C-alpha cells in the first residue's frame, strides 16, 4: 500500500519565473548567434523583440500566479524555450532564403506565438476547472469531426503538397486537424471515462488475455475507420496515425486492459498493410523510407526521397556539435522551416542540440503524464494523459520520419515548426495541462467549512500518494459517477 507522506505544498512559481528568464535568454542568445554568423554583428531589435517575447510569456506567468498558482512550474519555461528556438531557426532560414520582412516567415510566426500564448492565457483564465469540459464530450466530438472534415469541403479545402489537410480563408491557411487534436482528446476522455466499465467487462479469454465482447468493439472500429478515412481522403498519414494511436492509448488507460492494445495494434497493422497494397503514395513513402539512397528512388519525379536524404545530409554534416547557428546550409532541404526543422536544428546545433531539444519534449510529455497520474478525477487523468501522449506521438512521428525510424509523414514539430495552427493548438494544450496540473498539485483544502460531502473523499486524497500503487491504484477511487460531479472550489 502507498505510504502517505505529508508534503509542504510549494507553488513553484518563483522557480518558474527564473526558468522563464533562462528560456528567453536562450532564445535571445541564439538570435545573437545568428546575427553574428550572418551579418557579423548583433541583430538590431534584439532587445525589443526578445523583451516582447519575454513579456508575452510573463503575462501567462502572472495569469498562473493569479488563477492557477499550483500549476506545474516547468511546463511553461520548456514550451517557451522550444518556441523561442523555433523562432530563431525560422528567422535564420528567412535570412538564408533572403526573404524580405514582408515575406518573412519569422514575423508571421511571432504573431502566431502571441496568439498561441494568448490562447493559453484565455484557457487558464476562463477554464476554472478542467472537469467542466467533460460536459461537452459530444459537442467536442462533433466539433472534432467537423474540423477534420473541413479540408474536404470544396472552396475552403486546399490541397498542399498532396495532402488535403488545409483550409484557406483569404490569405490565411489553417490546419484544422491541429485543433481537432484537442477537441477529439476531450471527446475520447469524456467518452471513455463513462464507458470504461462496459469496455473493461470480462469477455472471452484467448491465450491468457481477456478480449472484449464483440458488441463492445464498436468505438474502436469507428476510430479505426475514421483514421483510415483521413488517410484515404486527406492523404495524411501522420494525422491518421496520431488519432488512432491516441485513441488506443486512452482506451488502454481507461480500461486497463492490454487486450485493447493488441486489438488496436492488429487493426493498425491490417490498415497499414491494406493502405500499402492499395495506395501508390503510401508505397512510395515506404520505398523512400527503406531505400532513400537508391538512385532510382532518389531521382524519380514523384514520391522521391530527395527531401529525406537532403535532411539526412544536413544532420550528418552537423555531427556532434553542429555547424553553429547561421553557419550551416539547412536551406538546401525543402521545407526546412516546417516539416524538416528537426534536420535544420540537427545540422546547426548538432547532435548535442538535438538531444537537448528532444529531452525538452520528453520532459514536457512526462510532466504531463505526471499531471495525469497526480490529478484525482478520471476525466482529468485521461485528458492530461491524452494531450501529453498526443504530443509525444507527434514528436515521434515527425522526428522518427526525418531520421528514418518510420516512414516520413507530414506532421509538424510542436512549438518548433513554422505554422500557426500547430502553434496555437499546442499552446492551448499547455494551457490545459497547466490548468489540470494546478488541480493535481493543489494541496488538500483546509478543513472544509462547507458541509462534508462524498467529494471530500476524493479531493482530500493527497496528490503525492502515487508511489507503489498496483494495477488498480488510486484510479479506483474515482468512480464514473463522481467524475461527472463538478467540484466548486472555495
Amino acid at each position, binding site marked *: 500500500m502507498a505510504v502517505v507522506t505529508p508534503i509542504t505544498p510549494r507553488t513553484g512559481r518563483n522557480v518558474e519565473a527564473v526558468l522563464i528568464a533562462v528560456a528567453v535568454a536562450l532564445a535571445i542568445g541564439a538570435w545573437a548567434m545568428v546575427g553574428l554568423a550572418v551579418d557579423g554583428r548583433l541583430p538590431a531589435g534584439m532587445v525589443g523583440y526578445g523583451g516582447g517575447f519575454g513579456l508575452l510569456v510573463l503575462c501567462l506567468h502572472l495569469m498562473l500566479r493569479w488563477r492557477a498558482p499550483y500549476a506545474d512550474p516547468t511546463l511553461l519555461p520548456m514550451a517557451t524555450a522550444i518556441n523561442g528556438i523555433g523562432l530563431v531557426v525560422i528567422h535564420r532560414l528567412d535570412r538564408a532564403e533572403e526573404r524580405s520582412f514582408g515575406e518573412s516567415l519569422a514575423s508571421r510566426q511571432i504573431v502566431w506565438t502571441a496568439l498561441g500564448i494568448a490562447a493559453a492565457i484565455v484557457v487558464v483564465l476562463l477554464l476554472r476547472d478542467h472537469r467542466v469540459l467533460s460536459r461537452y464530450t459530444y459537442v467536442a466530438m462533433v466539433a472534432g469531426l467537423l474540423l477534420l472534415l473541413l479540408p474536404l469541403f470544396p472552396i475552403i479545402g486546399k490541397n498542399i503538397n498532396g495532402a488535403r489537410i488545409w483550409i484557406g480563408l483569404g490569405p490565411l491557411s489553417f490546419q484544422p486537424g491541429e485543433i481537432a487534436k484537442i477537441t477529439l482528446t476531450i471527446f475520447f476522455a469524456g467518452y471513455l471515462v463513462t464507458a470504461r466499465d462496459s469496455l473493461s467487462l470480462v469477455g472471452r479469454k484467448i491465450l491468457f488475455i481477456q478480449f472484449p465482447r464483440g458488441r463492445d468493439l464498436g468505438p474502436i472500429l469507428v476510430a479505426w475507420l475514421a483514421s483510415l478515412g483521413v488517410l484515404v481522403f486527406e492523404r495524411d498519414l501522420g494525422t491518421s496515425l496520431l488519432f488512432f494511436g491516441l485513441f488506443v*492509448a486512452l482506451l*488502454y*488507460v*481507461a480500461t*486497463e486492459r492490454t487486450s485493447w492494445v493488441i486489438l488496436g495494434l492488429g487493426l493498425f497493422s491490417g490498415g497499414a498493410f491494406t493502405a500499402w497494397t492499395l495506395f501508390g503514395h503510401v508505397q512510395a513513402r515506404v520505398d523512400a523510407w527503406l531505400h532513400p*539512397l537508391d538512385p532510382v528512388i*532518389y531521382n524519380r519525379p514523384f514520391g522521391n526521397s530527395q527531401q529525406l*536524404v537532403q535532411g*539526412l*545530409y*544536413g*544532420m*550528418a*554534416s*552537423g*555531427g*556532434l*556539435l553542429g*555547424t553553429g547557428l547561421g553557419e550551416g*546550409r539547412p536551406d*538546401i532541404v525543402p521545407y526546412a522551416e516546417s516539416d524538416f526543422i528537426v534536420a535544420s536544428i*540537427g545540422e546547426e546545433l*548538432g*547532435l548535442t542540440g*538535438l*538531444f537537448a531539444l*528532444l*529531452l525538452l*519534449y*520528453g520532459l514536457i*510529455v*512526462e510532466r504531463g*503524464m*505526471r499531471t*495525469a*497520474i497526480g490529478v484525482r478525477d*478520471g476525466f482529468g*487523468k*485521461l485528458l492530461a*494523459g491524452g494531450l*501529453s*501522449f498526443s504530443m*509525444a*506521438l507527434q*514528436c*515521434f512521428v515527425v*522526428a*522518427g520520419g526525418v*531520421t*528514418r*525510424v518510420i516512414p516520413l509523414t507530414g506532421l509538424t514539430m510542436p512549438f518548433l515548426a513554422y505554422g500557426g495552427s500547430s502553434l496555437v493548438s499546442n499552446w492551448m494544450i499547455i494551457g490545459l495541462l497547466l490548468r489540470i496540473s494546478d488541480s493535481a498539485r493543489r494541496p488538500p483544502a483546509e478543513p472544509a467549512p462547507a458541509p462534508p460531502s462524498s467529494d471530500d473523499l476524493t479531493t482530500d486524497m493527497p496528490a503525492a500518494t*502515487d508511489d507503489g*500503487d*498496483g*494495477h*488498480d*491504484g*488510486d*484510479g479506483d477511487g474515482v468512480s464514473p459517477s463522481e467524475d461527472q460531479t463538478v467540484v466548486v472550489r472555495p
Partner: protein
Amino acid sequence: MNGPLRRLAGVVAVLFASLLASTTWVQFVDADSLDEQPTNSRTLYKEFGRERGPLLVGNSTPIAESVPVDDQYKYLRRYPGNQAYSHITGFYSIVFGPTGMERAAGDLLSGTSDQLFYRRIGDLLTGEEPKGASVELTIDPKAQSAAWKALGDRRGAVVALDPRTGAVIAMVSKPAYDPNALASHDRAEVIAARKKLLADPTRPLEDRAIASRLYPPGSVFKLVTAAAALSDGRWNPQSVLPGPAELDLPQTTVTLPNYSGGSCGVGDKVTLTDALRISCNTAFGYLGLQLGPGALAEQAQKFGFGQKLRIPLEATASTFPANANQPSTAQAAIGQYDVRVTPLQVAMVSAGIANGGVVMRPNLVKTVRSGQDLKVIDSPEPERLSEAVSSEVAAQLRSMMLEVVRNGTGTRAQIPGVEVAGKSGTAQQGEAGPPHAWFTAFAPADDPQVAVAAVIEDGGGLGDEASGGRLAAPVVQKVIRAVLDK
C-alpha cells in the same frame, strides 16, 4: 488508471529513446558515409566555405591560394603560378573535385586532416574560424621556371631531385593547362574547359613527369645495365666488351644495330666506360645477354622500378618486362622492348648514383604549417627508398657518366666550372614516330646537389634527327645551372 498511465509514460520514454538512438545514428555513426554520398552537395559547400590553405614554393610564393568571393562557395581557388605549376597544384573544381596536390594534400589544405586534430579542438574552443594548413613545397621556383622555359613549346617533361634528400626541386610537364579555368565557380565554364582539354590530342591534363604515360627510356637505361654489370663482379669500367656494328640476337634472325650504324671501337672491341660514353648498343646488348633478364630486373627494382610512389602525388610505377626471352633481354638492356619509365624514375637512377648508391624517397612536401599561427605541424624527414648499388659501384658509374659529358654523347650538358655527370638516351618508337629524346645528369659530380631527367617527346620537331644528347641535354643543363646558380 495510474498503472496504465505509468506504462504509457514508459512507452513515451521508449519512443524518445528511439529518437535519441536514430539521431545518434544519423549524426554520428552513419555521418561519414552520408558525407561521402555523391548527391551530397554540402560536403562540397563545407569544403569550399572553409578557407583552404595555400600551396607555397620558395620564399612563401603561393602557387595556389584561396581568395574570398561573394558567392555561395565563399572562397575561390586561384593559381598565380598558372600553367608552369599546373601539374603540381592540380585544380580544385566544384564539378570534378580536386586533382594534383589539391587532392594529395587535400586533408591538410582543407584543415580536416587527423594531423590537425588538436588544432581543430583548439579552434572549437576559441571559436576561431577553421582554416586549412599551408603546405610548402620543395620546388625551387628558379629551377621550375628554367625547366619550363627550356622545354619551350615541345612536349615532354623535366624532373629535378635533390639526390641527398629526395626533395623534388622542379617538375614540369608540357603541354600544360590553366588551372584557374577549371577552378571557376561557373559550372558550365568548368565543364567546357575540361571538355576542351580532354579533346586536345596533345593531352595537356596528363602529368608526363610522374604519371599517366610511360616512355621507353632508350639508352638512359644503360645506366641500370651498367650498374648491374659492375655489381655482378665479372666486369669493371675497363672491361673490354664486344662492340660490333650489329649484334646477332640468339633464337632470331634479327640483329641489334648501333645507333650510328658503325662499330664501337677498334676491332669491334670497346671498354665499358667507352661503351657508355658513346652509347654503344651492341656492347650493352651483349651485357644484357650475359646478365640475363633476372639480374636486370633486380637492378631496375633496386632503383625503384615497379614501385608506385606517393610523393604525395601518385607516381606511376616504371616497369621492366617480366619473363623477357633472350633477344628481348638484349633489347631491354638498352632500354627498348617493353621497358617503360617515368622521367621521375630516370631522375631517381641518376640521384641514386649521385648519392653513393642510395636512392632517397622522392618527396614534394617541405613543411606543413597550421593556418592560424603558422607553426610547423609537419616537415617530412628525408627517407631512404633503397640501396641501388654499393658506393664503389656508384663511384665507378659516376666516373663513367662524367666521360659521357666530357667527350661523349652528352657534351651539350657541360657547364663551365661544374663537373656534370650524365647520360643521353634516344628511345626509338619504330613506326609510331620519331624517337623520344632523353637526358639525365647530376652535378656537381663531387658534391651532387641536383639530379635531373628530361624527356622530349617524338623528337621535339626534329624528326629522326633528334637525339637525347642534342635535344634533351641542353634542357638538363639549364635546370642544373638554375639550381647551382651558375
